């Protein structure tokens, strides 16, 4: 396998942005998963479905929606542009596309593990004088920890493999927004199959490692 500087750059960029997107969605994903697991309100199912939608929608459609939201001619895009923040066709677009597409995976895994935490433990902690925050950080999060980490790894893998939404929101600009999947597509299109296979091998290795870790964590959760 011949690894060029370009290949390294693409790999590093993809891993860095995927990691960034996972870190960005982590607090929101945990909060939402906890709310889904513990709170009931009318029309909850609609919100839950909306959050899970990117999982089943064609990624290109999600990308199009994101482009409509963050494009310079939209109110949000314009507002951000006026403050010097540009989303479309740069790394921030890549990060947002990855974040939106991987968010449902994190929420789903974290929600399941929150549901498995016995609410009685939280109640007893409250009778012992623990504040809500202490209960959340000392009881709930540690007990749901494996599920949250497994969900994060899944989200990271999904982010790394993102293609459809990214190409619409961030384009496929070498050295600027080109991720592993976009580069593979590009290499195949331009007949540089050797490079494509190199990137493919790297993708397989990273994806295998993270899915394996995630599965291991989920199964060891069930054992305990």
């Amino acid at each position, binding site marked *: 396998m011949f690894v060029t500087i370009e290949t390294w750059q693409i790999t590093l960029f993809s891993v860095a942005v995927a990691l960034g997107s996972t870190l960005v969605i982590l607090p929101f994903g945990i909060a939402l998963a906890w709310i889904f697991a513990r709170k009931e309100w009318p029309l909850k199912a609609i919100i839950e479905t909306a959050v899970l939608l990117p999982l089943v929608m064609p990624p290109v459609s999600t990308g199009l929606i994101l482009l409509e939201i963050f494009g310079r001619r939209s109110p949000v895009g314009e507002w951000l542009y006026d403050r010097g923040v540009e989303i479309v066709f740069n790394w921030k677009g890549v990060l947002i596309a990855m974040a939106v597409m991987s968010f449902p995976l994190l929420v789903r895994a974290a929600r399941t593990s929150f549901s498995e935490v016995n609410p009685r433990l939280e109640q007893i902690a409250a*009778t*012992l004088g623990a504040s809500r925050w202490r209960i959340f950080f000392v009881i709930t999060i540690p007990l749901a920890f494996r599920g949250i980490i497994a969900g994060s790894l899944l989200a990271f893998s999904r982010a790394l493999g993102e293609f459809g939404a990214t190409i619409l929101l961030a384009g496929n600009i070498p050295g600027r927004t080109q991720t592993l999947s976009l580069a593979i597509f590009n290499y195949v299109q331009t007949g540089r199959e050797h490079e494509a296979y190199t990137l493919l091998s790297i993708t397989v290795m990273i994806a295998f490692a993270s899915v394996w870790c995630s599965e291991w964590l989920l199964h060891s959760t069930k054992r305990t």
Partner: protein
Amino acid sequence: MLLRCRIPLPDFAVDIDASFDARVTSIFGPSGSGKTTILDAIAGLINVNEGEIEIDGRILFSSMRAINLSPQQRSIGYVPQEGALFPHLSVLQNVLFGSNRASGLTARARIETDHVLAVLEIANLLDRPITKLSGGEAQRVALARAVLSCPQLLLLDEPLAALDVALKEKILPYLSRVRDEFSIPMIYVTHNLSEVLALADWILMIRKGRLLAQGVPKDVLRSPDTIAQFAEEQLENVFAVMIIDADRVAGRTRVQLESGQELFVPYVAQAAGQAFQVRISPGDILISTKQPEGISAGNIIPGFIRRIGRSDGQAMVVVDAGAEFYVRLTASAVDKLELIEDHPVFLIMKTHSFRIL
């Protein structure tokens, strides 16, 4: 303590109005009568529709005055049936979980950790993971955790229910010690009569969310109304006995009740003089008005009828035969034998109907 609350449940509503001031108050009733719901209401873990909950003049909940303290503010130690220890924390971390609250108290009100560990004999367990504790150890740790939060009131929800009979007998003394060593009033939920008699000095009898009777356990448990309730409930006769001799060949052990009355129970490989408890279900005892002859049962004991309680075609007859035996009969059997109070009768009990505790 004042406990007046109304809580609707799917099948019935818990509707209690009681006022008591005892060291240990037992909430006694069959499974599914709303006992845990009452504890949850006191601890502030569920919504109460209306009512008032007050401890030592401190209002925890009052629908009229719109007061509803959070579980954190109530200062109540709760030991649920399953113990609910935090499985990811060590025994020590569990035990000290609520001691933050205690640190705000004056030195006099604070309960010393070492004292609690000594009373409950758990000092040697502190480094163990929760998953490596036995059922009895876990209950003692849960008890220590609740006591060390220095609560104003301790709620115990059938703390012995999940334990096997042998273990129950071992844990009961720890509960008595907690009662005697730390002056925290307790509310003790159970459906076991012998636990009530061993621990409680006040009893609230609950059935389907309603208060049937309250008072000193011995009085309440002897009232005809209460006995009538027992006709429909799981109740067992439990006696402390001492071995006279154990005959392996005959397959039986001769034991003596505290009154001196002798009984035959199944063979146990133990020496004379050993003390233990035996148990017999009220449904396993026969009553005869004449001394039976040519019968295989090992125990035929004379006695007198003390009380008869009836409910829905069932009757619970209390017979004094050296100890008080509760005997479950149908109402028609009571009529057929013309059983009345002070009537002499014979109790017939198979050796094998006794279970050794």
